[in-house]
């Protein structure tokens, strides 16, 4: 049951392959264990059916859907105006992006023009949201690795500030409903921008602090280096996107690659870690991404133009012209797409969400194969899965 035994098993198997004699295989009972749906580190209600040989995972099956809330069905049975308020709940850590994906798709179909100030505001809140999402990931990932008490709540200090910004501008801390079809909900006060500016100034230092604690920590390195190596080819075949894909060495970021909104006007780099594609690279990709987001926010604050913020009337009569289209934004977890078929009425004919977590999670079984139990958390955590985003 210990690693010693499994090492023996491995050795015996190797030998058999090598010299191909009649050595009977050393057979052990496999243990099937249900990880979840109620488990401290499945980040919600994910169930993994693991087949273990000792502590080594032989086979994994993901059972998802425990948090299925029929978001697509609701979209088809609610008016556009009603549904806008619901979609933040798809990915509760980055609600701005789900709103944005929906709005982008609807605006593309509708041909609606979004005022420039609204576009800048969208980028601003989205990047803030990206930072807050990555900060939460950082904390919870450390919990997954077993640093249960100290560090995990440290990034929450900064995240709390961001949530306060959102509360001020959108009225809610998590379910913002701020980005609307045709613009944004409301224009923040001048003092708000000043606060955000102060935040960005000190945030780079805070990332340095986190890195000082985590990045070169020997135990952290031991737990993350060469663990859960995700090859470029596998990642692309599984449709993995976001920092997880970029850590495997594919410089695929929608903000750069298929620029939308005002991203072409902004200067930033897409951090790519083409070393191994292991969990440590994924960690580094996210940390660097936070720095980049911080830079983007600084630029946006400088470039923010005056003007309108909304072109469409926000009431129950909100309609989108007939047509179909797919639009995607780069969420903290990857490509968050929305496929809409509209028939011109007050409800959509068909909604389909393309969630980054859904595709990113599907790569988990091959990553877990032949890894010890403890690595499950290191690998699973590094993929940054949000279960509501998977289950919708």
């Amino acid at each position: 049951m210990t690693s010693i035994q499994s090492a023996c098993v491995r050795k015996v198997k190797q030998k058999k392959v090598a010299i191909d004699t009649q050595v009977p295989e050393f057979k052990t009972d496999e243990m099937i264990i249900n990880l979840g749906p109620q488990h401290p580190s499945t980040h919600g209600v994910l169930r993994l059916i693991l087949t273990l040989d000792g502590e080594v995972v032989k086979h994994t099956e993901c059972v998802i859907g425990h948090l299925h809330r029929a978001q697509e069905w609701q979209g088809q049975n609610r008016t556009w105006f009603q549904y806008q308020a619901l979609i933040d709940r798809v990915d509760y850590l980055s609600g701005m992006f789900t709103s944005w994906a929906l709005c982008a798709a609807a605006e593309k179909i509708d041909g609606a023009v979004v005022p420039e100030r609204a576009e800048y505001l969208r980028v601003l809140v989205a990047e803030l949201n990206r930072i807050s999402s990555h900060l939460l990931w950082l904390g919870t990932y450390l919990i997954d690795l077993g640093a249960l008490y100290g560090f995990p709540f440290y990034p929450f200090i900064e995240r709390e500030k961001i949530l306060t910004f959102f509360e001020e501008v959108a009225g809610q801390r998590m379910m913002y409903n701020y980005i609307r079809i045709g613009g944004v909900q409301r224009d923040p006060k001048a003092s708000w921008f000043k606060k955000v500016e102060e935040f960005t100034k000190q945030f780079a230092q805070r990332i340095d602090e986190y890195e000082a604690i985590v990045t070169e920590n020997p135990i952290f390195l031991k737990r993350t280096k060469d663990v859960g190596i995700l090859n470029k080819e596998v990642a692309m075949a599984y449709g993995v996107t976001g920092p997880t894909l970029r850590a495997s060495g594919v410089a695929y970021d929608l903000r750069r690659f298929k620029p939308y909104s005002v991203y072409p006007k902004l200067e930033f780099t897409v951090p790519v870690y083409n070393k191994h594609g292991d969990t440590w690279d994924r960690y580094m990709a996210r940390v660097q991404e936070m720095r980049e987001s911080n830079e983007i926010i600084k630029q946006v604050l400088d470039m923010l133009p005056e003007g309108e913020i909304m072109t469409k009337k926000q009431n129950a009569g909100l309609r989108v012209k007939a047509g179909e289209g797919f639009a995607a934004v780069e969420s903290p977890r990857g490509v968050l797409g929305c496929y809409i078929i509209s028939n011109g009425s007050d409800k959509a004919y068909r909604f389909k969400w393309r969630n980054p977590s859904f595709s990113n999670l599907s790569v988990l079984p091959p990553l877990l194969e032949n890894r010890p139990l403890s690595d499950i958390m290191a690998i699973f955590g590094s993929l940054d899965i949000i279960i509501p985003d998977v289950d919708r």
Partner: protein
Amino acid sequence: MIPNAAEIRKLSVLSFSWLTVIFVAVWGVCWLVGILIPALLANSSFDFARAVSEICEAITPLLAVMVFIPINAMFMVLMERRVLALFTRRNGPNRVGPDGALQTAADAIKLLLKEDITPTGADAAMFTLAPIIFFAPSIFGAIPLLAAVTNNNKLFQIADLPTGIFFVLAASSIPVVGIVMGGWASNNKYSLMGGLRSAAQAISYEIPLVLSIITICLLAGTLDVVSIAKQQSGGILNWNILGGGALTGLNKAIAAFISSAGPPIAEVIKTYYPYGWLSLIGVIVLCLCTIILFGIYLIGACAEINRIPFDLPEAESELVSGYNTEYSGIKFAIFFLAEFTNLFIVSTIAVVMFLGGGDCPLPTWLNPLSYPAVYIPLTNILSPILSLLIDKIHLINPDTFWAALWVILKTYSLVFFAILVRGTLPRFRIDQLMDFGWKRLVPITLVIFVLVAFARGVINFHV
């Protein structure tokens, strides 16, 4: 500017008041049972009364431990939560009682009143026995230490134990049986894996732990905790962490230099370091070795009591709660209590074995209280009160008081260090843990053992 100075102040007040409560409670019980009742019954002509007074004296150490452990564990839990909150700039528990002081007491009451569940398919007898086996050794382990940390107070000499440290180590090796038993009896796969991990881990880390202690015993030349503690008296230079007595000569030489009375310095040095350069090398080697040994002891102890970064048996993010997943109510409370008590006991062992026991860290020549010019006026001022308390009713025993105070301070520093580690480090993986234990710690301790055995020969110890 410290950002959370207010929190630190609150925590200090909290710690001070809790430690006072612990001190007063334990010493109050001991004084009542060990001194007052026997004193009242001593002149009685009835055999029965005298027997009662003897029994009272005999059970005092046990009583001290029994009173100390639950109150202390309550404070440790509270302190851990508050300190961790401090590290992360949160508010810890601060609602129950004044500034959250009674939070853990409330938790304890809740746990005692909670339904005690035995899962289906569990081996009920073993399931009940496991927390007891886990907890009982910590009481037995604490008893020999009691005399060592109270400056060999007559009250706490339970028995003449020439193998004291061995007794403590034997007691500390039993809890793993409780963990395996609980893990197996729970009829839960997570618990079972926690138990198995615990067995593997405890066996691997027992070896460097015991070897580091044995090396110190080799230096001290005895297995008796009381005499090991006594050998180290006289300031930090005499402690085992700095050469295990190798620097005693230096200490004496400086004292001789300052006082300018007594034997000449050269003579002192000649007595302690007879081989010149060889002795110097020996001193350096011993100092380095003992410092490394202290580190190894701390690592081994962390692994032995399953604390982060070695908390694999109860790895929360992997095994839910490991071996105590299925436990609830009072059984869980006992597991919890024992965990914190074990932390306290291994810290106390470290204090007694490495950090001088109840010794003041200042060397005698640096300690103002050791100069007659200071302590004579002080005692004159305080004598009316002190003489009443010390001589008349024996409420204060100065030796015991200072020793216990220093031990508590040192032990809680180590506990604080353990909390700091808990608040900083992630967890090892099981194979990395075994690698680290067998391939690093065991060889290092073996090498140090040999080095110490040789270096010991070139220095005169405990002359």
